[in-house]
């Protein structure tokens, strides 16, 4: 047992910290750190800058821009990136479709899409969930029917995050209605400018427009846009969702949120109950971070450590708890509208309730926390 990082990893960490502040423009990092709105343009600029330095997709295969880092180094990369206020590379590109294409797509398709995906020249949207297929994703009903060389797609996807910016959407579609539900699914890449694709905004309880419905009406998709083989979609979906679970443990983000909350607490820190609440959250977060380190330090050959299922579950719970703390620290100032040009209440206080409400999503997406409990109960405890 040894606590400290090896000299090599320590140097790596310092190099990452220095790189992120050098590579990504300060105004973008400041916007992130101060919790201001991060625009699509900022996300594009940031990811292109990261990609130019080989920092956007280090976990991809080396021939497509990956770096061959250890799990621990990837953890340090992510940790330092979040700490520096760099917007995370668009997860639909870098964590979801990129690794799927690298694993399952034809060489031609890889060459066509992977470089543009890494560089965010293509903004990907995710077309998985449907109104009647949430946690039970395999129940999806959007169909793709072969017509000559093309597929004709009909149906509806929903909860498509940032779909309003999407250039392309990767979808799971039903290609064999007769097969057992998991076996009749394929993955299709669809250009969102194709006639028959319609994106409709969904307004959320935080007042924002983050997610969308995406409707497909007789959308013609070239046959070459099928990823891998027909009816192989569920294999790819499981591969993608497995990656997503590891990626959504928000340790670094929650650390930053908690440090900000503490800094903003001001006089409220004189209250022993507030101090105890913060100290307890810090300790819970420390236990989670150490679990994440245990997982990354001992994940062999890409096999997830059993404790990795704890990360998403507990990470999102803490993310929600810290966002709840921020609303309590804001107090009545949370009600001062963010839209007022002049107000005494600071921005963070006026945004605190929408953030709190927004983060209720965290225990629902990426495999809801109940799905995580099911995974723990079944695969770890054998129940």
């Amino acid at each position, binding site marked *: *047992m040894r*606590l*400290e*990082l090896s000299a090599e990893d320590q140097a790596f960490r310092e190099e990452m910290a220095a790189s992120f502040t050098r590579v990504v423009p300060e105004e973008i990092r400041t916007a992130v750190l101060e919790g201001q709105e991060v625009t699509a343009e900022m996300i594009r600029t940031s990811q292109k800058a990261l990609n130019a330095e080989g920092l956007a997709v280090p976990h991809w295969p080396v021939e497509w821009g990956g770096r061959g880092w250890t799990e621990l180094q990837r953890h340090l990369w992510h940790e330092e990136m979040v700490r520096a206020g760099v917007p995370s590379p668009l997860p639909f590109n870098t964590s979801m479709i990129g690794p799927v294409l690298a694993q399952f797509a034809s060489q031609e398709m890889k060459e066509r899409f992977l470089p543009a995906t890494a560089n965010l020249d293509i903004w990907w949207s995710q077309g998985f969930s449907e109104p009647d297929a949430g946690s039970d994703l395999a129940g999806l009903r959007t169909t793709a029917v072969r017509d000559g060389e093309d597929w004709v797609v009909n149906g509806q996807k929903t909860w498509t995050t940032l779909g309003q910016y999407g250039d392309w959407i990767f979808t799971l579609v039903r290609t064999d209605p007769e097969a057992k539900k998991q076996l009749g699914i394929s993955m299709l890449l669809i250009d969102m400018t194709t006639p028959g694709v319609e994106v409709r905004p969904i307004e959320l309880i935080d007042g924002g427009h983050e997610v969308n419905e995406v409707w497909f009406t007789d959308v013609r998709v070239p046959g070459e846009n099928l990823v891998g083989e027909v009816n192989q979609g569920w294999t790819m979906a499981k591969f993608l969702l497995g990656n997503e679970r590891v990626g959504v443990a928000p340790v670094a983000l929650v650390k930053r949120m908690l440090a900000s909350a503490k800094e903003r607490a001001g006089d409220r820190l004189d209250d022993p109950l507030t101090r105890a609440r913060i100290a307890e959250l*810090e300790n*819970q977060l420390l236990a989670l971070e150490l*679990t994440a380190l245990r997982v990354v330090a*001992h994940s062999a050959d890409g096999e997830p450590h059993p404790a990795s299922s*704890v990360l998403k579950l507990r990470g999102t719970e803490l993310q929600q708890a810290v966002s709840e703390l921020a609303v309590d620290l804001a107090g009545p100032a949370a009600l001062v509208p963010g839209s007022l040009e002049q107000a005494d209440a600071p921005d963070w206080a006026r945004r605190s309730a929408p953030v709190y409400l927004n983060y209720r999503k965290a225990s629902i997406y990426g495999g809801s926390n109940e799905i995580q409990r099911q995974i723990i109960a079944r695969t770890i405890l054998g*129940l």
Partner: protein
Amino acid sequence: MDFTHDEEQVALRDAVRGLLGRKYADFEERRRTARGELGFDETVWKQLAEMGVLGLPFDEEHGGMGAGPVEVGLVASEVGRVLAPEPFLAAVVLGGGAVAAAGTDEQKAELLGALAAGERRLALAHTDGATPVTAAEADGGWMLTGAKEPVLGGDAETLVVSAALPGGGTGLFVVDGEACERATGPAFDGSRVSRVVLSGTAATPLGEPGADASAALARVLDLGRLAACHEALGGMEVALQATTAYLKSRKQFGVPLNTFQALNFRAADMYVSLELTRSIVAWATMMVAESDAGLAHEAVLRAALQVSRAGRHVGQEAIQLHGGIAMTAEYLVGNITSHLTALDHLLGDGQQHLAELAGAVDGYPGLDPLAPTMRSASTQ
């Protein structure tokens, strides 16, 4: 960064598990042993001595093995898994630890040598009763007056007693157990706990006479808390294992209990608590082994806070998910919960640790377990 044990450490764990696991595989044997006159098994104690366990953390020149907190933690965890009644925490970690931290070379050689050989048990009498123990110098010697309770394993041959010094500060003294007025009984979890009354009782200063031993004492208490964390962790592991096994085998309404998702989810949450605790206890152990006393103290408090929270969660749920059987004295699981409760309150509970941590919470921006200072740099 490495959370794994090396071959020697694994061999130590396996050896201790072999001995204690075999002896107390049947929980009835543990109950019988704990109820006996001595409260533990002398043969097992001797075997632990032969394995080097009773001298584990002490210098080789004093009869010890020269091991550290990692090894002590491995043994404590095995003790916790079977609720072994042998007083490893009381005699070795606390009693012996105090001698190792504050004693002269001569005292260490004598007391630790006898302890390591299984010939003499030590205990640390620190928590005061209603009359705090004070030390006085008289006729070229020292005398102690006051009462200590509870003293874990206080029926030991030799006691190390903390006492207020006449000039301020806290001294540590060696007292012959027979020279005190002692009463010993089983605590609610079966641990042997004593009340020790000193009435002008002759005592030998541990280390330099009259010197303040507060720092050494604080270190020993931290080592004790850390070992208690490991002991609790061992108990929690077994409580969860027993619970999942029970959910799979116990039938109600004609089906096994694991048919019911409400129960499985609660077991999953127990697993979450256990894994988080495993991580922070391993980290605190490394901090104690590698860091200065201040950081080590904070790390121990942090681990002990998590253990307190998780121990209650896992212990309570283990009983609930078993149902009535876990309320019985003859079944292991309820006894684990009882022992977790005792460990939680032995050297300060979660609430006290939280209060201490909360007191310092505005002194740093955030925590960073990878930084040598444990503090994260400011983001700006």
